[in-house]
Structure formats: structure tokens, C-alpha cells
């Protein structure tokens, strides 16, 4: 049961990154590739009806983490205090930008919110990548199960780590590049005309950069956290997940060249999903690895709620999850295909 909820949390987080990831990606690239006001409106309308529902995956994943592993939630959220509050502030700006830009018809107003959306999207993508880096590297948990990491120390992933070090910064940049690629793929799929052409051109460059950053990350992970490979060594068949992930990235680039926009977007979704799932598989059963003493680590077994709670939760989660799928399929199907001019306002 503890393991089942680990899979559920992983699934929800991966859904979040795939879905809200393209919102961040669009936020990162649109000011550069959408030049006229009409193009910008089209770009923003492509994510307008869906971004809020996408963001909910993060909120719900956080709440499910709280429910299933209260100790890990408490330790992680208080330990990354400054970074998490920063995420909150950035999410506020991102949400406001998307909601308020169309409210006032004035050039300066729109430019201000364009900047706010762009900067918050870039920073959020970096921060989320950095967060993943911190999970992989580990944090200085003490024997009471708490830790506190400053924003940076000496930028080395040693025994006194900060949130930012060379490894987590590398993951942050990879995350920004990959999500920008994903967002450009999304825009290419949802638009036509000049905007479409520029989105395709941006996606090509970003796709190659994604491949480069992915290669660097894959090389860096064993240097910082060699034990991530243990689960794979025990179950070599799971090596297929990151392998298929990498092949998906290749396919995404291939579809990009062949101008098959929807396939390229789906391939980048599969790539992101599988890479995250692979990391979580490697982490299992650890949620927070202690750099102080391995024994202080929080795992799915010592951080979880009791078995009644976990079992009762499965009951309502299955029903709730089917409902979520129904809403999301309905929502995305209603806005499927190119952005329609009558949706723009």
C-alpha cells in the first residue's frame, strides 16, 4: 500500500510536469516567436482554457503527498522553505499574468504581463528542475526527520548542500530547455501561419539543446547519487523506461523534421513522463535521502500514514481519479486542434 501511493504521487507529479510543462514552455517562448498582438493572443489562448486545470495536478499532488506521507511532506516543505515560498510567489505572478493580461486594453499593461509571464515561467521551470536535483542529491535530514537548506552554500553537492549547487543548477537549466522545447511543440501543434513556422523553428533548436542537456544530466546523476542505479541493476528490464524516454526524444526531433506536429508533441510528452518516472523508480523507497546519515532518510515506509488511512484513501482515490480523467479528457477534447478564432478574447 505504501508503494501504491508512491506510484500515485509519481504519476500525479509526472502528469503535472507534462501538462503544466507545456504552459511554462509557451510562457517561455511566446514573447520571442509571437510578434504581433494577434499572434500573442493566439499563443495565450492555446493554453488559456487548460492551464488552470493543469496547475491543479501540482496542488493535488502536494495534498496527496501530505495525506500519504505526512512526515515527508512536513520535512520537505519546511526544509525547502525559501525555495517553496518563492515558487508560490512565482505561481501567483504566472496565474495573474494569464488571467489579467486581457482585462485592460493598453499596450503597457500587456507588455508588463508578458514580461511577468515570461520571467515567472522561466524561473518556475528552473526551480522545479532544481527541486528534482535536490531530491536526487539528498538533503541534510537530522535524526528528528527535519532539515533546512539555505539557497546556496559553496555550490558543491557535498555534506552541507544548498538548494543551488552545480548539479541542481544543471537540472534546473535542463528542465527549462526541455519544457521550452515541449511548449514550442505545443504551440506548433496549436497554431498556423507565421506563428506556427516560428514555433517549429524554435522547437528544432530547443530539441537539439534538450538532447544535449539530457546527455549531460544522465552523465552527472551517477556522480552525485550513484545509488540511483541500484534499483535498475536489480530489475534491469526497467532500463527500458529511460531508454524508451530517450528514443521518444529522438522521435520527437524526427517528427519535428517531418512536420508531424501532434506526434512531435506527444513524443516530447512521453519523453518527460518516462524520464521522471525513471528517476522516481531509482529513488524508491526513498522520498528524502539524508546526506547526514543514510539511516535518517525518509522512505515510503517510515514517513507514511497508517494502513487504515492508506487503504481508505485508495477507495476514494480510484473514483476521484476516474472523474479527473473524465473532466480532463472532456476539457482537452473541447479545445482540441488549432486555436479557434472565436475562442480568442
Amino acid at each position: 500500500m505504501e508503494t501504491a501511493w508512491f506510484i500515485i504521487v509519481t504519476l500525479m507529479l509526472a502528469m503535472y510536469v507534462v501538462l503544466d510543462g507545456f504552459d511554462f514552455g509557451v510562457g517561455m517562448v511566446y514573447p520571442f516567436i509571437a510578434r504581433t498582438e494577434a499572434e500573442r493572443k493566439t499563443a495565450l489562448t492555446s493554453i488559456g482554457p487548460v492551464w488552470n486545470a493543469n496547475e491543479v495536478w501540482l496542488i493535488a499532488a502536494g495534498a496527496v503527498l501530505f495525506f500519504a506521507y505526512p512526515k515527508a511532506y512536513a520535512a520537505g516543505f519546511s526544509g525547502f522553505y525559501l525555495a517553496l515560498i518563492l515558487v508560490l510567489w512565482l505561481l501567483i505572478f504566472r496565474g495573474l499574468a494569464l488571467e489579467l493580461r486581457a482585462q485592460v486594453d493598453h499596450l503597457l499593461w500587456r507588455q508588463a504581463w508578458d514580461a511577468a509571464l515570461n520571467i515567472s515561467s522561466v524561473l518556475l521551470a528552473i526551480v522545479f528542475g532544481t527541486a528534482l536535483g535536490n531530491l536526487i542529491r539528498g538533503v541534510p535530514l537530522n535524526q528528528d526527520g527535519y532539515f533546512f537548506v539555505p539557497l546556496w552554500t559553496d555550490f558543491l553537492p557535498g555534506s552541507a548542500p544548498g538548494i543551488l549547487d552545480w548539479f541542481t543548477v544543471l537540472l534546473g537549466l535542463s528542465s527549462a530547455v526541455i519544457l521550452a522545447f515541449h511548449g514550442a511543440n505545443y504551440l506548433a501543434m496549436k497554431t498556423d501561419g507565421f506563428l506556427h513556422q516560428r514555433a517549429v523553428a524554435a522547437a528544432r533548436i530547443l530539441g537539439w539543446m534538450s538532447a544535449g542537456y539530457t546527455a549531460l544530466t544522465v552523465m552527472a546523476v551517477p556522480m552525485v547519487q550513484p545509488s540511483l542505479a541500484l534499483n535498475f541493476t536489480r530489475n534491469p528490464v526497467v532500463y527500458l523506461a529511460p531508454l524508451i524516454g530517450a528514443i521518444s526524444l529522438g522521435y520527437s526531433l524526427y517528427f519535428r523534421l517531418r512536420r508531424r506536429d501532434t506526434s512531435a508533441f506527444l513524443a516530447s510528452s512521453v519523453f518527460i513522463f518516462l524520464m521522471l518516472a525513471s528517476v522516481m523508480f531509482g529513488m524508491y523507497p526513498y522520498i528524502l535521502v539524508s546526506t547526514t546519515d543514510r539511516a535518517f532518510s525518509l522512505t515510503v515506509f517510515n514517513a507514511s500514514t497508517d494502513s487504515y488511512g492508506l487503504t481508505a484513501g485508495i477507495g476514494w482515490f480510484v473514483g476521484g481519479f476516474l472523474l479527473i480523467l473524465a473532466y480532463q479528457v472532456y476539457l482537452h477534447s473541447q479545445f482540441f486542434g488549432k486555436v479557434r478564432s472565436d475562442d480568442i478574447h
Partner: protein
Amino acid sequence: MTSALLYDRLQFAFTATFHYLFPQLTMGLAFLLFYLRTRVLLTGDTHYEEVANFWTKIFALNFGFGVVTGIPLEFQFGTNWARFSTYAGGVIGQTLAMEGVFAFFLESSFLGVLLFGKRFSRRVQWFATLMLFVGTWLSGYFILATNAWMQHPVAYQVADDGRLFVTSLSGLLTNPWLFWQFTHNMTATVVTASCMVAAVGAYYLLSGQHQAHAKTFLRTGVVVGAITSGLMIFPTGHGNADQVFQHQPVKGAAFEGLFRTEREAGLYLVGQPNLETMTIDNPIEIPGALSFLVYKDLYAKVKGLDAFPRDEWPDNLPLLYYAYHVMAGLGTIFVLLFGTALLSLWRGWLFKMKWLLWWLMLCAPFPYIATSAGWMTAELGRQPWLVYGLLRTSEGTSPLVHSGNALFTLIGFVGLYLLLGMLFILLVSNLIRQGPVSINLSATHLPQSPGA
């Protein structure tokens, strides 16, 4: 109180109070919008459709501010209250996760449909509004279930390591405390929304614009507002007070300002609690009224603060006392105002009574003050407990987040929310100035309709 604890408390109180300014209108308006959309669906009335579209715009703006200010609350359980989360996560994790899974996805998905679905039929718009109504009220239900458990813990057991775990999910979701808390709180959201709708109607009528719409706003707001503001006092307000005196007598004594245990205890309408002398200064008192309200007996003995050890008293007594009196006082004023307005509407005078329209217009901010004061009553009155009778607030903070960090983020939130508040007022005034006619979500359906 250590400074970190103070900043943690101020930050949660500030962000929660500010956040709740938005969802109360969201939930109340969702109820009214569902009524309006149903009417549009059944009668095909374009006037009501314009009314519904106008309030959908306000709803959406308001919903957006509610979303962005709501995320920090969910995160703060972990960031600032880590020991509380570890201790009680085995219980309240259930309700919070259920809120995420059952309410948030529903709301956010159908908001997208409602806002970007100009091309959708009336039936789809009606359905999306229904789903938003259900989603926002479910969200309220799960949050209130969480709070009700903190006020009145049920269905839990203490594990060997001292943490709490839920023993019965249905017991948690049907906490007896929840019934009056839910009815009182949700009725209050409808009062806020009705007051807002009536106030905008009064503004249009007084300034001579959008007369037809203004009258519909006023009719809807006044009728619903009169019913709901009455329900706030009886039975829901009374039911809440009853359960406080039954289960949290020290809270009741504190918010009534009853320092000494008395027979024939009086009800203070006005007065300032004096902690030096343990009396109420400048009191205006109805003798015996408190005894009567609590025990239906003018001469019954009501326990005062002196019946409880000092370290179980709520730690900010005067603020709690004022919060309660502001809530109860405003609640009474709303009944009088909406009662008068309903009577005038029924007699057909309301639209000509300028002074009453002025009162209805100026009333708009006061439901927000009343609900904030009501929540302060509930939460300050829960002190010094975080989970009533089980965990003290001072034992719930994050052990390693020091006061410098907490103050830094508190200042950041205050600055950011100041900006948000200004933006909201600017944009909502903008929408009200544009008026209901120029905003037509379904213009594509009604190419021939006049005024579209």
C-alpha cells in the same frame, strides 16, 4: 511567544484572511449564477442571460484571485507548521487530499469551459455553472471538515510515536461540529454575493445606468440576501454558539467577555474588556440574556473565564471579543437592512427610495468584514490550541525555520497581496463601469438580439 511563532501565526492569519475574501464571493456567486443560468435555460430569456454573463465575468476574475492566493495555504501547512503536519497529517491529510482530487479538478476544468466557451450552447454553459457550483461548495466542505476536526477532533487514535491517525473516514466527514459550521459559513457566502449583486444594482440605479439590469440585480440580491441573512442568525448562528458553549465553554466565555461565572449572565452589546480588572468597561448589557440564549433559562449559571486555568484562555482576549461583536453586530444590521429592503421591494417602493439604495450600495464591503471577523472568532477562540485539547499552537511550528526566514516571507506576502488587492479593485471597478450590456459571452449565438 517566540518571534518565529508570532510570524508564523501572522503569516497564516494574513494569507488565510486575504485569500478568503475571494472564495466567499466565488461560492456565493456560484449559487446565484446557477439560479440565473437555470432560468436562462428554462425560459431562453436574453435579459437574464446578460445578467448571468455579467456576473460570470466578475466570478471569473474573483475565482482567479482565489486560486492564486489559495495555493500558499496548502503549502504553508508544511512550510511553517511542519510539526503540526507530522502530528495531524494522518487525519487532515485525508480531507485536504480529497479536496484536491474531488473539488479542484472539477472547478478548474469547467472554468476553462465557461470562460473560453463562447461557442458553447446554453445547455453546456448551464452544466459548466452547475459543476462550478458543486466544485466550489465541495471545496468549502472539505476545508470546513478539516477545520471542524481542528476545533473538535473526532475519529482519531494516537499511535505509539504520538502521531494521530484517522480511524473512520466517514466519522471524519460527518464530524458533528461540521453541520452548523458548514451551514453557517456557506450561508454567509451567499449573503456576501447577494450583497454584492444588490450593491452593484443600487449603484447603477442611483447613477442612472443599465436600469433594467439594475432592477434585476436588486430583486435577486435583496430577496436572497434577506433570506440568507436571517438564516445566519437563526438557526445557523445560534447552532454554532450552542456547540461552542457545549464543547468549548472557555471560548464562549471569552468572546462574550464573561470574566466571572454568573447566574443570570448578561449579554454585552458594547464595552471594552479590561484585563487589569477583569471587567468590561463602559458596558451596555442585556441582563440575563446570555443565560437565556445558552440554556433557555434567564437564571441559569454560565461558566466564566474564572472557571478555567489561565493557560487555557485564548491568548488574545480583547481581539477575540471584538471580532465576535463585530460579526454579531454586522449580522444584525444585515437582517435589518435586507429586511427593510425586502419590505420595500414587496410594496414596490424600493427603486425610488434613494436613501435605502445608498445604504445597499455602501453595504458592499461589510459582509467581508463580518466573515473575516467570524473566522477570527472561530480561530482566535481555538487558541492556545492548534488541535483543540490535543496540540498547542506553539508545538506545531517548523523546528528549523527561524524567525528571520519567517519574517522575510511574511513581509513578502504583505507586499505582494497589497499589489493584488489594488489590482482586484481596479479590475472589478473596470468591469462594473463597462456594465452588463457590452459584455456578451454568447454574442455569437444571438446575432439578431437587440443590444447585443
